[in-house]
């Protein structure tokens, strides 16, 4: 049994002008200790998928169909109080902007100790020891002396380390990290990536790493899901998806990324932009931009089918399978 199973997840936003479908039939699994990268452009639904799992979907957004199971138990329909106990204890969260994830009015030590005591039976002194240990583990020098510091006294990279310590407080099984390095400088980004990898290895924590940066995914993830217009376009082992992508969108996306050492005059260009939620085209939602589009793409919506070592939602590959 996988640690996290998401099955046919559907997230809707009811509006005055009708219901918008933000996530449409998304299914995936995360195994224990695995890093699943979720990559996509803005509006692809990657952050909403993460928010659905931690139960932080902002109203009026709601899960309209599907199931989310953690260790076999459904967590998508839990009452608020029960969800609160799981969130933080079994699922940790790291967000993009470390300054807004921390309370500016409390010291770092206070915030960590409080979180530990909410989720465990530790005494104040035990929680304090654990805090020092956690802060040291995430690479904050002289942690004991920094307990009394406020978030504004830390730099951006150090704050993100504190947020990671906060997410680790209760030894969660899964961490949902939504763009954890986007607000940071490149040299700090490399440090945070290395830290996440190490923690994942040491604690056997699974990470759902949501980012728009394929480079971060290539460095960190075991498997990657590429999202487009609320659906998974392709999912598979990171090496396969990066080096031998199967879905035309993934192929375009990989060609669009400038790479040091690749001397080309022009980058691959995917014409147009992602459709808005109000007018997602019929059939495959990528069809207006797809260089290999054919008749079937305009009428039928492709499901994920295995092609080689990855799984892609594209009629090009379905054809091979069924031998049409």
């Amino acid at each position, binding site marked *: 049994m996988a640690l996290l199973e998401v099955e046919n997840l559907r997230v809707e936003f009811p509006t005055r002008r009708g219901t918008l479908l933000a996530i449409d039939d998304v299914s995936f699994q995360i195994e224990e200790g695995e890093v699943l990268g979720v990559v996509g*452009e*803005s509006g692809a639904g990657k952050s909403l998928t993460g928010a659905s799992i931690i139960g932080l979907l902002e109203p009026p957004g709601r899960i309209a169909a599907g199931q989310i199971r953690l260790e076999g138990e459904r967590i998508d329909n839990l009452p608020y109080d029960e969800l609160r106990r799981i969130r933080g204890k079994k699922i940790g969260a790291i967000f993009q902007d470390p300054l807004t994830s921390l309370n500016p009015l409390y010291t770092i030590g206070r915030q960590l100790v409080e979180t530990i005591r909410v989720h465990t039976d530790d005494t104040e002194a035990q929680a304090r020891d654990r805090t020092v240990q956690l802060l040291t583990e995430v690479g904050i020098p002289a942690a004991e002396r920094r307990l009394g510091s406020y978030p504004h006294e830390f*730099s951006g*990279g*150090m704050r993100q380390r504190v947020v990671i310590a906060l997410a680790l407080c209760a030894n969660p099984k899964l961490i949902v990290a939504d763009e954890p390095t986007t607000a940071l*400088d*490149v*040299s*700090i*980004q*490399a*440090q945070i*990536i*290395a830290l996440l990898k190490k923690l994942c290895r040491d604690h056997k924590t699974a990470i759902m790493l949501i980012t*728009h*940066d*394929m*480079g*971060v995914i*290539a*460095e960190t993830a075991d498997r990657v899901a590429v999202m487009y217009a609320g659906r998974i376009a392709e999912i598979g082992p*990171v*090496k396969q998806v*990066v*080096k031998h992508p199967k879905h035309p969108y993934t192929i*375009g*996306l990989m*060609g*669009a*990324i*400038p*790479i*040091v*050492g*690749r001397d*080309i*005059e*022009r*980058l*691959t*260009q*995917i*014409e147009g*932009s*992602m459709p808005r939620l109000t007018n997602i085209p019929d059939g495959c939602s990528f069809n207006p931009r797809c260089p290999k589009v054919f008749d079937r793409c305009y009428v039928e919506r492709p499901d994920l089918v295995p092609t080689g070592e990855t799984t892609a939602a594209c009629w090009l590959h379905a054809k091979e399978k069924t031998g049409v």
Partner: protein
Amino acid sequence: MSDRLIATSPEPALLELENLSKYFDVSKSLLNRTIERLPKQILKAVDGVSFSIKPGQTFSLVGESGCGKSTVAKLVVGLHKPTGGQIRFDGTNVADAKSIAQNAALRRRWQMIFQDPYASLNPRWRVHDIIAEPMRVFGLAGSSTELSKRVSELLEQVGLSAMDGEKYPHEFSGGQRQRVSIARALSSNPEFLVCDEPTSALDVSVQAQILNLMKDLQRDIGLTYLFISHNLAVVYHVADMIGVMYLGRMCEIATPQDLFRNPRHPYTRLLIDTIPDLEMTGKAREPVAGEVPNPINPPSGCSFHPRCPLANDRCKSEIPKPIHSATGMVACHAAEEGRLPAPQTVAPA
């Protein structure tokens, strides 16, 4: 690769910066300083930066936040007044242009593209008026029909439709807005564009569209770019020359091939080491240590020495002087003394 060769040809530079500096006074008020007995605090955002750009070339500045790259951009276009040093555009010292007419004649020849296409377009103006404004300001507009015709041409040149002029900025996506910014910048027929992180706010597929558009425009109308970015891969793709900045000073200037194959400044090596490995070579990397220090109180000597694996006593006390070579520059004591180990980074093929 003919455009890469221009770097060494004797053609005069279009833009030359010589020892350019910009200091900001970030002290507390006089009263507080008197009561608390604090000294004045000066932030050296740009400190003695020199480089030149040949016509038709792209010069890129890279560095982390706070290194002064955006301040250089603002100095070049005249949004800040330099504290010291010179900016020469096409042989003319920009500070010498005293009269309004001289200034306008000079300033018409360069334009700027900003990072955030949501903040740099007036939401209350139609795109037509946004694009026409530089032409109006510099008196390039003839009749209003001529103006409309020119705006339509510009819109089509950047890959939008002539009808889009009637729309407002909010009706466009981020990438389309950046195209509008480019059309506006091109409307006064400039020779030189300063682009401050033009693609950082965009998704990768849109970034590819904008980078391709900028390259096409450069080829078609011979534009010269000062391209500022924190993304080394983007810089490798667009630049003919790259300047690496750290805490207000220039560390190294080199062609992209030299810079990535044979980086000579330890900071450049650190930056290159942080590029995520999309080729999945699985190479082990040196863990990068430390963070950029506070620029108000930069370290003595070479400002990189606290993070530098090669630092010695000289680095702590003496600011390294730029050492020029045929194609580049490096400011590092270790490079000067030959203490630099061979680069460990995998040379890009």
